[in-house]
């Protein structure tokens, strides 16, 4: 699971590395973000996620390697790449003495080709239309985060790079944000998002890359990762015999006894075949159900750490 299936890669890092003295924050990172997909960038604290995003956006110079956005090498075409990119960085960035509308006016001037009507549109989109003339220093944390999103969407970018965008949002806001991201992806936008909310990432993202200690551990589709953790839980009339039978089946990845039942690592769609194999050997099922599989389980397994 090292390469994401796609016809076009919008964002690619090639051998990307960043050293601070002897400390390597990012090592030989090779990410691929396909067009029109929502790509979750996961890793424990200090894994190098924000450093990577800063390098993608040209805020930090890589020690080695480079970034390609829309096929453009950002060492030579950074401005061109960034004109087609919107971003939210961890930690907010706004002018506290200006209104929400004026903040977006400032950003619009930098982006160019943004109409005043578009400013109103994005403010409505993020639910700040009614507060557009209020100074930002009167906003709650969640409202400031929404303003950041409005700023990122202002110039209708093809690629969104979002670093912990749901920080400060309440549960309803997080849900709205997730739905908005899905809408943007459905409209053909590509989204690269780092988050520590694994449940949200599972619901929001098509693909995931997991980093730890600056190294990319794995990347691929969320569906594939969840499939890796697929398992069936069963209660049987003869557990010892059942283990022997199941272990003899080549597509069963593992059988583990657990609190009076067996956990069988096997594709869910082959449950009937398992049932038949057991019955053929005079072992009968009293209960069979799929084990819940989550991205969090997979994350914890591959990183060997807590989700946060």
């Amino acid at each position: 699971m090292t390469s994401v299936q796609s016809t076009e890669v919008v964002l690619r890092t090639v051998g990307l590395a960043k050293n601070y003295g002897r400390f390597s924050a990012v090592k030989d990172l090779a990410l691929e973000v396909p067009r029109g997909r929502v790509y979750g960038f996961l890793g424990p604290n200090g894994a190098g996620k924000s450093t990577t995003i800063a390098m993608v956006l040209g805020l930090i110079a890589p020690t080695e390697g480079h970034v390609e956005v829309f096929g453009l090498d950002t060492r030579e075409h950074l401005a061109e790449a960034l004109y087609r990119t919107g971003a939210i960085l961890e930690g907010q960035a706004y002018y506290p003495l200006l209104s929400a509308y004026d903040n977006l006016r400032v950003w619009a001037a930098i982006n160019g080709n943004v109409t005043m009507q578009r400013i109103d549109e994005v403010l409505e989109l993020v639910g700040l239309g009614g507060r557009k003339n209020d100074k930002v220093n009167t906003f709650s944390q969640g409202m400031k985060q929404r303003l950041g999103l409005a700023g990122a969407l202002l110039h209708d970018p093809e690629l969104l790079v979002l670093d912990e965008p749901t920080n400060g949002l309440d549960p309803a806001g997080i849900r709205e944000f997730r739905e908005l991201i899905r809408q943007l992806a459905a409209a053909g936008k590509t989204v690269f998002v780092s988050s520590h909310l694994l449940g949200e990432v599972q619901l929001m993202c098509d693909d995931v890359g997991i980093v730890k200690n600056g190294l990319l551990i794995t990347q691929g589709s969320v569906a594939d990762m969840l499939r890796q953790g697929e398992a069936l839980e069963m209660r049987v009339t003869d557990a010892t015999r059942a283990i022997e039978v199941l272990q003899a089946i080549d597509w069963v990845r593992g059988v583990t006894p657990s609190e009076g039942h067996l956990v069988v690592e096997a594709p869910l769609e082959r449950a009937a075949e398992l049932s038949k194999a057991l019955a053929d050997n005079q072992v009968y099922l009293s209960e069979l159900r799929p084990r819940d599989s989550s991205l969090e389980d997979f994350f914890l397994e591959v990183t060997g750490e807590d989700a946060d």
Partner: protein
Amino acid sequence: MRINAGLLSAELLKVRKRWLVYILLAVLIGGAAVQIWLLGYVSWRTDDVEYRADALRSFVLPYALPALLETGQSWGSVIVGILISSAVATEYSWGTVRQAVLRGQTRAEYLTVKLLGLTLISTAMLLLTLAAGILFSLMATSIAGLPITFDAPGGPNAFEAIIMVLRTGYCILPYALMAFCLTVVGRSTALGVAGTLMFVFGEAIIMGILLGIGGVWADIAAFLPAHNVNAIMAANRIGYFNSPAMRDIGLSASELPDPWVAALLIGVYCVGLLALAYAVFQKRDMTAGAGAS
């Protein structure tokens, strides 16, 4: 480089929404009022004959013009330094500098737009102060019952008056750019303001010491910005050699460098400061939390 009216307008919007601009403008206009009314008009009304002529020159046109410009250059340098340091450093603390750069604005464009915007705001502040000073002068002259006229021996015509104003602006430039450079490099309002103040006042002390020692040390002093600023500002005082400001610096015109040479040296300082600021900003990693004080 993409510099347009929209970017400048946005820069002006950011700066003019800050209270600091209006506080600094009030300080400048207050300074002009002190010069015209307190050091000029009130002093002139005292019976102390020794200072009456100097006091008269402080508030009656055309003599008040170079006096206002002289004060404007020294205090204007400090005020503009504070404005620039604050406007540049807060972009770091608010994180907005990163937002600007990640939107495709090149770092050189960012600094250039900021510099142009601050130049426009500073120029407007200084011209407003000059206008207020001239208004105070006209009022004080009228109250004193003296004739209001520019027709004095050695007095400037309109063109020369404009040149005097431009000279003053040019002499503010090295200190403004020093504040700019220190703040860009240090990412701190405190560093920009303190560094500029220390330089402005420290330089005057060092120059006094070097000139006092004489010899080769006095030659070194000739390369300090203040010495060359004095030379340029002295050109504003042609015809006014008896002004108190001229005596304050303890020099005759013959001891100062040629104004054109001085202007060239000041220009070298300005280019050097700009080059340093741009070079550091271009290479800098913009990490989160690289804030300013």
